[in-house]
């Protein structure tokens, strides 16, 4: 999802840079006074390092963490999470040539702002819909992570479309299609990590003192279901094909990226699951996972509505 240099038009680059810089400035003024720089920095470094761990998704495919939802949950503050994810993107752009310099504003916009804020709104809402108990957090965050990944991808597609770089009928289904799969992976990782934290150190996770107004819950809940439904409807037929076609590419590319001799070349972190490549069963498996998550949201929101 990292847009490289040269793929967005100058107006879009300028606009997103201004917006992102503005939001970042706001974030610094809004974040809690007692948030310590080393805590943000180490959480950021943690998210970066965690992205290096290959996470088996299903049937031989594996993904890695993106981190927006995880950052929101463990930091408990969307402002700080925006700062943290933006720092990750900045360092990736500068030190790994991953994501463009001119596209940094756009990438921060997609992942650090859209991704983070969608996560924040959703995770609080879904957790409430699920009954609010702390032990529901992993599930709530898992579903959120999947959806926020997709929404960041949608935002990314929109920027490419506005830039005139890609036509709508091509990029939207392709991006959402692939990112639905990536999102499932993201959901699984985020959920599992939170389950680990819940088991070892529950005090670190936020309690259910939702900062959302009451009326926001049903509204976002409905939007959530509607959004996911329409997304699926619009992208399904092409998406599926694209997914199958691209998945191989993605893994190939990601694999090469890690082996690339940047100054960090020492870290040829090979995955736990070394067999790379995909299989029909892998695609099917992930689709089933997503279907499950999807119906669960739908089902639960109906019941509480």
């Amino acid at each position, binding site marked *: 999802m990292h847009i490289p240099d040269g793929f967005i038009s100058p107006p879009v680059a300028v606009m997103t840079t201004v917006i992102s810089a503005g939001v970042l400035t706001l974030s610094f003024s809004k974040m809690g006074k007692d948030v310590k720089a*080393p805590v943000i920095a180490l959480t950021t470094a943690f998210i*970066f390092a965690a992205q290096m*761990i290959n996470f088996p998704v299903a049937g031989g495919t594996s993904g890695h963490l993106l981190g927006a939802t995880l950052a929101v949950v463990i930091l408990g503050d969307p402002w700080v999470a925006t700062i943290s994810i933006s720092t990750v993107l900045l*360092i990736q752009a500068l030190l790994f040539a991953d994501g*463009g310099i*001119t596209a940094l504003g756009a990438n921060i916009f997609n992942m650090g702002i859209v991704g983070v804020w969608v996560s924040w709104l959703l995770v609080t809402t879904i957790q409430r819909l699920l009954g609010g108990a702390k032990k529901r957090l992993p599930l709530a965050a898992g579903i959120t992570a999947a959806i926020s990944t997709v929404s960041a991808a949608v935002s990314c597609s929109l920027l490419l479309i506005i830039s*005139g770089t*890609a036509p709508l009928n091509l990029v939207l289904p392709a991006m959402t299609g692939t990112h639905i799969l990536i999102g499932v992976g993201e959901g699984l990782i985020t959920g*599992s990590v939170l389950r680990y934290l819940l088991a070892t150190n529950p005090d670190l996770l936020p309690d259910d003192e939702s900062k959302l107004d009451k009326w926001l819950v049903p509204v976002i809940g409905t939007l959530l279901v509607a959004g996911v439904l329409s997304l699926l409807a619009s992208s399904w037929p092409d998406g599926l094909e694209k997914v199958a076609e691209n998945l191989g590419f993605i893994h190939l590319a990601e694999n090469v990226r890690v082996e690339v001799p940047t100054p960090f070349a020492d870290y040829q972190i090979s995955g736990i*699951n070394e067999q790379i490549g995909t299989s029909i069963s892998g695609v099917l498996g992930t689709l089933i996972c997503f279907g499950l998550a999807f119906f669960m949201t739908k089902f639960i929101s109906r019941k509480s509505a």
Partner: protein
Amino acid sequence: MLKLSLFLRLRLSLILVISTALIKTNNWSFLFIYILIALCWCIFLKTPIKILLKLLGAELILLSLMALPLGGEKAGFLMVRSLICLLIMNSFLLSVPKYHLSIALKGLPLPKKMQEIVILTGEYLEILLLEIQHMEISAKLRSLNGNSNWLRYISAAMIGSLYLRSLDRAQRVYDAMVIRGYNGTFPLEIDNNKSENFMLIILSIMVMSLTFSSYKIWIN
């Protein structure tokens, strides 16, 4: 040969990348000028060609994935433009000695608060990456294998325990800073070389006007 400081190299690379990325789409003649500039830059920095090629090859896969659906000339232009940017940035990266990245980060024109976070992040990135690497190896030394449920569980456990450790360490690092008199502002000493700054300004004006002229603003 003239030896440029790390900061100047970083800033120059950034300016070159920005001006390349902003050339008017499908204006091939200006693109060629930038190809030449980029090649000079990479020769000047003595970039190891073999590594650079490998690296660009890898990026090409990603780029084509994004651009190819566009078809035709446009895709070609976008890809070449993007590749030049990558060439410039990667030439810079390969010229930085290992572990000096957080020193390079110091030279970024960023607001103070952000800079502090970026530097601290850069500093601990190395440590955490090493810890991940060590955890993975120690898992392998203990013959990690099994079904994907088990592997998922282990991956999550590694990420989770890395987080707990980062948090512990964040607390101690903060305390260590406070004990040595930290009071909210990070004392950073940045070498400010006047002649380098002057050179930087002149060069940025030059490349930026080149980019502007790709839009034929002054010709019409």
